[in-house]
């Protein structure tokens, strides 16, 4: 899966008004499918550090677009397993070191295509060991999580751990109450959350913290009205959302803000129609793909978050997305009810 941006640009074609409101489903599918055929481009190799994330983004986008068969299942499983280490962790691509971020993507991919049991069948380490790798990154004193053995901590990694371990039914391997207390210590006066205690609120970190609390069943700790107020102020007059005050709008922030609002039941606090139109303006309707904002190059990262955002806004024809996991709702419901 290539993380190369382009070839298309968002919103470059000046179509008539009705076209503006359409989602170019077929072209987005083709765009995602074409990504892996671009190995002759230098940028394909320069973005190798994101490859496994890229597969998760592309696969999720295809599922939400109603084309779950869009990527070959066997080849996907082979690629995921080729990124695994004996420790249970996964790297971004074969030969890259294991890290929380890629391990989470690996679990999400396997869960999406109902192939988690492949870990036990032919992985370098089984399901339980994947859980142990993740659990081993928790700091048992502070409850926080590191990204890898080198120790950087960030609420993104804590959320990743909750996300993957809940999909594997292995949350019991970690100290959930300590982790929850750590998230709570990251709360700020505006109701938002930062990367660590003391850090400024940021829509991306809010998504990870609220998501972790949602998985732990502790949304009671969230100051919903205050957080909802701050998040709703992320919407700008052009309909797009930014990630912090005084910043530019961006499709990926639309997702983080919107999914957080959905988790605290405040999605109605922003203008969904205007946001829908903003996301649609960011797509390249001819060549497929979605950009961060109109006029910029498209990429698979903004493509999945744009489509997931539209799904959360109940855009017709899309599969429902789970705001916590950013995976098809039908799939997370099936796994979590097991």
């Amino acid at each position, binding site marked *: 899966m290539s993380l190369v941006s382009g070839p298309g640009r968002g919103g470059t074609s000046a179509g008539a008004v009705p076209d503006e409101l359409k989602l170019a489903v077929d072209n987005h599918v083709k765009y995602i499918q074409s990504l892996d055929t671009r190995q002759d481009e230098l940028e394909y190799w320069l973005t190798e550090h994101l490859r496994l994330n890229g597969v998760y983004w592309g696969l999720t986008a295809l599922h939400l677009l109603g084309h779950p068969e869009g990527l070959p299942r066997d080849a996907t499983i082979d690629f995921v397993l080729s990124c695994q280490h004996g420790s249970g962790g996964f790297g971004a691509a074969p030969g890259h070191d294991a890290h929380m971020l890629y391990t989470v993507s690996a679990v999400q991919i396997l869960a999406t295509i109902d192939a988690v049991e492949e870990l036990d069948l032919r992985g370098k380490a089984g399901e339980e060991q994947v859980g142990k790798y993740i659990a081993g990154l928790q700091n048992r004193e502070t409850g926080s999580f590191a990204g890898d053995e080198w120790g950087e901590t960030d609420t993104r990694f804590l959320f990743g751990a909750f996300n993957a371990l809940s999909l594997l039914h292995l949350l019991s391997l970690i100290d959930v109450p300590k982790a929850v207390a750590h998230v709570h210590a990251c709360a700020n006066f505006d109701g938002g959350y930062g990367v660590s205690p003391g850090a400024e609120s940021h829509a991306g970190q809010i998504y990870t913290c609220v998501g972790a609390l949602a998985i732990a069943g502790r949304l009671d700790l969230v100051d919903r009205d205050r957080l909802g107020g701050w998040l709703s102020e992320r919407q700008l*007059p052009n309909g797009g959302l930014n990630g912090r005050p*005084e910043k530019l709008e961006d499709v990926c922030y639309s997702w983080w803000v919107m999914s957080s609002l959905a988790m605290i039941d405040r999605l109605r606090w922003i203008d969904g129609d205007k946001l829908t139109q903003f996301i649609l303006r960011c797509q390249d309707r001819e060549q497929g793909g979605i950009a961060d904002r109109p006029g910029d190059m498209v990429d698979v990262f903004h493509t999945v978050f744009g489509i997931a955002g539209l799904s959360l806004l109940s855009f017709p024809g899309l599969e429902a997305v789970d705001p916590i996991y950013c995976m098809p709702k039908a799939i997370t419901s099936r796994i979590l009810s097991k």
Partner: protein
Amino acid sequence: MTSIREHQYTVETLELTSKLLRSNPEYYTIWNHRRLTMQHLFKGPGSSERSREQDHDAIVNLISDDLAFLLPLLRKFPKCYWIWNYRLWLLEESTRLLPTAEARKFWQQELALAGKMLSLDSRNFHGWGYRRTVVQALESTKLSTQEPINSMAEQEFEYTTQMINSNLSNFSAWHTRSKLIPRLLNERGADNEARRRFLDEELELIQRALWAGSEDQSLWFYHQYLMSNFDPKYARDSMVPDLTTDERSKYIAQEFDRVQEMLDGDEDCKWIYQSLIHLSKLRKGLTAEWPAKADSVRQWTDELLRLDPLRAGRWNDLKSDLDN
């Protein structure tokens, strides 16, 4: 690449990783290899023959050189997480391997680096985060040269004042301020009188700021934070925890008058209406009575719906909340 695959940890490997990282600093596995190589070089060749003194100088040189190698990369890729992580790891190695005073010098320089970055872009997320991490390290017992530890709360608070004075629209600075205030008051051993004076000064500061920029949401968020001091729900964490109900309602009345005054000539500023409603609800919660006629509160929500249709769902919720 072979030397990396074969896990060789030499000066040559270090140079190779430099080359690779200059062209692609996102290549995190190469950063990890560089860490392993550095740890190998810290140990030195056949260390038994060398004096401790030499080891120490060698480590200082290795760390200085590596910090210097990172500078142009940070300038070119200021948003790349891996570079910042590696830099922090290097500094932590200095804490681990060097005498406290020596390691402190390295960390101290980083404060200047963070300051320089923030003077170029006063909202740089990494810049503020980095500054906070460096301050935390300098305040930690591991790097402390005195008892009790050297708190930097006063100095950092002063820094946020400077940043705010040069540009009011700096949410990062207001945020940092909110985090420093409780510590500052505790460390000063502030009594109730001193705490009230402090609160009054913050109220003055934000009023002046709001008059200069009534459309600036950063300021209103900070104003909302200050108003939590008068909300029993947040009293435990407030600047003056022992305010009486009577004092709280006096403060609320004072703020209410100040904000209402802003309305004159600024009738299309939604934040003013929002604040007036918030203050009215606070007052109602404390004394069970509205500070103004209940009709006005309803009128203000209508103004919000008129001025801010994007968030109509929120204002409608507020409206039905007022009806209950």
